[in-house]
Structure formats: C-alpha cells, structure tokens
C-alpha cells in the first residue's frame, strides 16, 4: 500500500466525541474499506442524527477526497489540503449557498500526543481570508472492555 494511502490511519477506530466545552456530542466509527483504498465514517450524534462519509484516494487527481451524506439529505464534498502543521490533515470544500456565493468549509483533524484527535470545522464566506470556527471537538478512543 503506497504511503499516501496511510494519511488517515491515525483516525481509524471507534471514538467518543466531546465538544471542547465538555459535553459528549456523538460517536464516530472510522473503518477501512476494501483493503484501505477508502475509509468509511459512521457518525451518530447524541441528538440521534446520523451521517456517513467516505474518504478515498482518487488516483486521477492524485488526492484524497471526501463525500459526506447526512440524514438531512445534505451532501458535502471536500478534498485534502496538503502540508498541515503538527501532523494534521485538512479537507476543504465549497458549498454553494444558492445566491451565487460559495461558503468555504474545512475540517482539520490533528492527532494529539495523548492519543486523542482534535477536529476543528471552520467556514469562510470571504474566500478564505477569515474563518469562523463552527465545530471544535476531541475524539477519545473507545476502550474495548475485556
């Protein structure tokens, strides 16, 4: 398996997700599909909502892409932005607002030294000049009970 297929390995697993402000927000399971050419994310929020996404390495464009489907019928697409500091990965996409404008939407996943992963989701309405943090959470690996 070429090294570029391993960029998301740190995120594979079963996670409990807590907002940085404290409360639990949901559970997420990240699993490799078909030998690792794609990863499947299965999100269940504490509010009962579900989402599924795929991360996949798209050879024609030589980059990782993501497609995200929620139970509200909303589909988001992002692609990997290379070269993040601190070993993190960042996916960014554009969301048409329907009035001609586009919202930039980016997710940054950063593995922390204590084994947690931090997920920050930010949006920009000015082409990436300024960003608003919309989501900030810690992923805590679910401990398998013996």
């Amino acid at each position, binding site marked *: 398996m070429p090294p570029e297929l391993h960029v998301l390995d740190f995120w594979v697993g079963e996670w409990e*997700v807590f907002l940085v402000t404290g409360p639990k*927000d*949901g559970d997420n399971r990240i699993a490799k*599909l*078909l*030998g690792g*050419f*794609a990863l499947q994310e299965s*999100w269940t*929020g504490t*509010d009962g*909502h*579900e*989402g*599924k996404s*795929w991360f*996949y*390495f*798209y*050879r*024609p464009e030589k980059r990782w892409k993501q*497609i*995200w*489907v*929620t*139970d*509200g*019928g*909303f*589909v*988001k697409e992002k692609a990997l932005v290379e070269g993040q500091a601190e070993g993190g990965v960042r996916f960014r996409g554009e*969301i*048409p*607002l*329907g009035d001609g404008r586009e*919202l930039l*939407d980016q997710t940054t996943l950063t593995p922390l030294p204590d084994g947690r992963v931090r*997920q920050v*989701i930010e*949006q920009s*309405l000015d082409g990436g000049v300024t960003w*608003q*943090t*919309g*989501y900030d*959470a810690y992923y805590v690996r679910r401990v398998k009970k013996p």
Partner: protein
Amino acid sequence: MKMPQSLNLVGALISMTASLCAQPTTLPSLPPESRQFDFWIGEWAVTTPDGKPAGTNRIEAIAGGAGLLENWADADGSSGKSLNAYNAAKKQWQQTWVGSNGGILELSGTLVNGHMVLTGEHAAGGRRVMERITWTPNPDGTVRQHWEQSTDGGNTWQTAFDGHYRKKK
C-alpha cells in the same frame, strides 16, 4: 458564539458535527429526490443476460434514507462498494465506487424517464473513457444494471456489464 446569520443558516444544513450553536439541531427533511433510487435497495442475486451468476449485491439505505450503500461481491471473488446520494445543491445523484483493486469511479446523473442514469469519465492509458451506468426497475420487481463505456467521446458505446437483479428469497 455569535455567528453571522448566513453562517447560521448554512451551519444548520452542513452536518450534525458542524452544528454551530447549542440549540437543538433541526435538519431539513429529505428532498423528495432522495427516494428516487430506493428501487435498488435490497439483497440481490445478479446474473448475466445468459443467466450465469455474476455476483451478489446488497444495497442498504444509510443516513436515515439520505443515501445508499452498495456492497458488491463478484462471482470472480473481487468486490466493491459504492456510496450514493442525491446532492440537492448540485441537483444530481452522485455515486462514488471503490473496487477491491483500488479503482475508483465518480459518477453523477439523474433519474431519466424512470431510469437512473449515472455517467462519468476518466483517463486510462492516455485515452478518455466515458462511463454510463443505467439502472432500470422492471414491473416484476427485478432491476437491470447496464454499464456501458465509450472511448470515442460518446459516439459508440460498448457494454461492460449487463446485470439482471433478482431479489434473494
């Protein structure tokens, strides 16, 4: 946190993981188009036009019915999966397929006269290959999946796969 109104509106749509405020998340109901591919949901035995086993396929509804997950097991031992969903912003269906050989297809399209027609293209050996897959629900509950390819810009099409789906008992 105080967000601009436009960000709040979009944020409510974006995802539950991106819920921006502490208020309960209220997601919009599914667009009616999200139901258009439901005819493909099920556990299927798939045969070639001459009746030989081609494989089995399990199509599951995911994310509260907003998408479909395909789980293909080919009679030759290979396998593949696809994620399908209606993208309301782009007014199209989208499919991402990944095969056990790592091959990935990105397809998009719409329901046309009752047929789900998804197309895509990619480069292979320096040539452009166009893909067109048509799913047709038949009155008897079976489904036909006809996959065609063109290497001359869509002038002529060759059948790559012609699968006849019958629900497993």
